[in-house]
């Protein structure tokens, strides 16, 4: 048995008989087949620790020449505006530079085309048009089916629309904007502590599943007369129904114990605004919650957005946003760059370092969460001042359970940025041969970083 699935699975009928009568199901500890082996590197059953996946997004790239340096191999440093993540470089990070979003004659929609290309492998036909699912949803399909939540999306801007995760038929996975609401979703009344002595399934779960079964039964009649496009949208709806059914099914079973799992404290109520101080605070809280969500195996996939493409973050009491500054702030002739813009860029990597610290401090076996996950960090542009989609920087973070080498800088030599996405999907076990359309189509993962 693995950690992934089917511990103490019971039939719906059995649960109806027992749980609806209010009976608690006692789970004896330790739950031997789910505990760690002697060396702490795997489950006692021999199954490896689960490898999780996340995306992290920051807006407006970087100041070329500062932070991400044009180096290759292992001889590089994260300096200046990226200095906060330097302590993680050698053991956990790979830096990808000189990968492009080839437009194939299409217009570049500023602050949109770049990230859409990186996440979908396709160039959008205009602003707001998502041409294909984002890669995180393929990873979620591959690894997210056995947890309560297939994926968790979070936005530190206070706006639910600021989530760059899209499924089939353009379905948008909106971001959680309130840390408290996320906490309640993850660790509220429906959370079952895997280390609790007893397990009491919620008697309503079975009935909620019955409601969903009644809904699923309508598929045939509804899809029958629909056109192709509407059929795709309805299929996505029924997929969502199935995913919730699965979620309820997972919740019906006693979870195996997980040493690192501790129900966190509830955060304060509130939703961040676009003030950078508030976004940073929200990012810190989201980082804590998602680290524990991973440790408690509530989800294995997350998408955390620190700032939007064309970031509207601003410092308290100032009139210019990060985006406006990136265009209008004059170069400081003494230092040779835009000082205020760089300050915002620096905040992005301070936020990222906070997430990585949180993951690294969450121990799991003889390692940490950072050893057992892959985070793909992406942005919308390289030099925000010119809206460039040439050389958009990206990072992989984490060892992915030993599947990734680290400490490398990889030059794309103007190759498609979809190679980075394909690499991440391959590492995460997505059964994918090639990915992308037109010049973004690739069957060449970046093998240099694959262990």
């Amino acid at each position, binding site marked *: 048995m693995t950690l992934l699935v089917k511990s103490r699975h019971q039939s719906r009928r059995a649960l109806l008989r027992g749980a609806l009568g209010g009976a608690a199901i006692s789970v004896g500890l330790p739950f031997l087949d789910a505990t760690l082996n002697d060396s702490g590197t795997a489950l006692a059953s021999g199954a490896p620790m689960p490898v999780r996946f996340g995306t992290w997004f920051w807006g407006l790239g970087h100041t070329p020449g500062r932070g991400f340096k044009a180096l290759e191999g292992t001889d590089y440093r994260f300096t200046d505006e990226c200095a906060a993540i330097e302590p993680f470089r050698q053991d956990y990070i790979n830096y990808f530079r000189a990968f492009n979003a080839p437009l194939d004659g299409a217009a570049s929609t500023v602050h949109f085309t770049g990230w859409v290309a990186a996440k979908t492998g396709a160039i959008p036909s205009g602003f707001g048009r998502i*041409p*294909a699912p984002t890669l995180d949803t393929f990873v979620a399909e591959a690894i997210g089916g056995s947890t309560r939540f297939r994926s968790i999306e979070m936005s530190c801007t206070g706006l639910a629309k600021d989530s760059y995760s899209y499924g089939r*038929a353009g379905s948008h996975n909106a971001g959680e904007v309130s840390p408290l609401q996320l906490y309640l979703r993850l660790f509220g009344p429906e959370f079952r502590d895997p280390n609790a002595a007893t397990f009491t399934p919620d008697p309503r779960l079975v009935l909620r599943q019955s409601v969903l079964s009644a809904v699923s039964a309508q598929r045939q009649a509804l899809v029958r007369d629909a056109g192709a*496009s509407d059929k795709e*949208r309805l299929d996505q709806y029924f997929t969502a129904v199935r995913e919730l059914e699965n979620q309820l099914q997972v919740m019906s079973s006693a979870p195996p114990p997980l040493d690192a799992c501790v129900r966190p404290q509830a955060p304060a109520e509130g939703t961040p605004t*676009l003030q950078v101080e508030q976004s940073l605070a929200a990012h810190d809280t989201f980082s804590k919650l998602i680290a524990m969500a991973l440790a408690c195996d509530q989800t294995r996939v997350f998408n955390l957005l620190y700032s939007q493409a064309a970031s509207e973050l601003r410092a308290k009491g100032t009139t210019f946003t990060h985006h406006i500054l990136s265009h209008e702030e004059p170069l400081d002739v003494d230092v040779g760059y835009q000082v205020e813009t760089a300050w915002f860029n620096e905040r992005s990597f301070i936020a990222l370092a906070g997430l990585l610290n949180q993951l690294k401090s969450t121990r799991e076996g003889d390692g940490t969460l950072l050893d057992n996950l892959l985070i793909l960090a992406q942005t919308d542009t390289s030099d925000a001042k010119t809206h460039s989609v040439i050389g958009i920087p990206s990072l992989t973070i984490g060892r992915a359970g030993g599947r990734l080498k680290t400490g490398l800088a990889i030059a794309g030599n103007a190759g498609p940025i979809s190679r980075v996405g394909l690499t991440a999907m391959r590492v995460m076990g997505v059964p994918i041969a*090639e990915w992308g359309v037109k010049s973004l189509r690739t069957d060449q993962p970046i093998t240099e970083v694959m262990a």
Partner: protein
Amino acid sequence: MSARVSRRTLKIVAGIVAAAVGLAACDAPEPAISDAQPMLRRLTEDQYRNIISDVFGPQIIVAGEFAPILREGDLVAASAARATVSASSFEKLERLAHGIAAQVVDPDNRRLLIGCEPNSAGAADDQCVRQFLASVGRLLYRRPLTTGELDRVAELSATAARGTGDAYGGLAFGLSALLVSPQFLFVADTREAGAGASAPLRLTSVAKATRLSFFLWNTTPDVVLLDAAENGVLDTESGLRDQVARLLGSPRLVDGVRALFADMLALDKFTGLEKDPDIYPAFDPMVSADAREQLLRTISDQLVARAADYRTLFDTSQTFMTPALGRIYRVPVTDPSGWSPFEFPAGSDRQGIQTLAGFVALYAHPGRSSPTIRGKAVRELLLCQKVPDPPGDVDFTLFNAPNSANLIARQRLDAHNTVPTCAGCHKIMDGIGLAFENFDGAGQYRATDAGQAIDVSGDFDGVPFADPAGLAAALKNHPGVPPCLVRRVVAYALSGVVEGPQASWEKYLLERFADNGFRLKPLLEAIVLSPNFFALGVATEPRQEAASVVNSNPEDR
């Protein structure tokens, strides 16, 4: 210099309007939309909330988040015809459904809302269950439930009643099943065979009722309208006219008009609108909510209650005020407890909805104004002119002036003229937007910016103006204003836009709009009484071919 446009200019503009609407061609037959496809629209959040309130009463709280439909183009109404439900959205919808159902069967509400009492408190009463679910199901599905559908939810209710030992608890699960059903969450164009062997398929009567109700009231059809549809009355010309007259004459029309303009003016952007409290301490969430409401109250008052010429919106001084808004406008408020009518004095710069706080604050930055954003909003929202996206390769270093942060807006934006690729578009946006510079980022009046006098004069498509009042006159008389409204209303009505036949229909409707003094209600009436309104829908632009991801055929490259 006079703030007003000259009489000669107005005559010229009036002539342009007359030419645009083709007044001489009134007798032309109404162009027909053909080859339309049936559509599937996802309920918007407002529609969902309206339906719950209409079916169960305003005491039922829709508590919780509702994943928004992302605006992909000019209208959310059109995006709804492309939207689906993601896993995280469905999770929220399921939670909402159970929350609503629990409130409906709550002891405080059940007597009023359920309409029958189960024989036993601990087990389902099949007759009562069916009576209730058939009744609300008809309103939620916008048609009678089929026998199979009713059997399924009744059976579910019975099972749940046995499981919970509570008849009402069981009923709640049956109701939840209706509320998460795609038949409720998606509005589908149901079709039937037309009269005659070779007649094309047509919308069913209940689908017609649904279109009417969502367009005019932004909610599900009421019982009277469904009766008319199910009895076949709606298929007759007189029956249709009667129902249209009823819908247009109802106070509920305000809900439909508010929804239309909230969509047209992109007021969904109020979600998340924020202003820096250090810079604009008067602008708080209550001001934001009231500013949005002020826009919609002003619009519905002018267009529905007063039946005014649509163009009056752009130079009216009449609006409504609350104590919170009084802080922004710096005016005394007569009713300290809520909304009261208000009229800006003669000579005020506040003329037209485009000068209300809701518009100028929404289209601005958190900490300062934005002539570019405001000018773009006027062009795109009120004139239906698409301002091209900024070029992807512009190098801003070319006009990075030292100390630009200390320049006032006109000086900063003059820099755009130094870059030819920028100048073209910024000229058509900034020229209009600079007229609003007396209104800061929170919509408050200011006489100076950074200690300098503000020059708000400009030129709007050949019409010079000296101040916002002059811009109001120029906007009111701009020949692009009436056609833009017609275009938006037609797209809103049909949940999409196609060129060709629809454009001809728009032109036809524009003539009627002009004939009727540019009043909204006759325009709405002309649309819903047209056979085009019940055409099977408008084909939306197909999505780009999705990226092939798994073992795709190399030949497809």
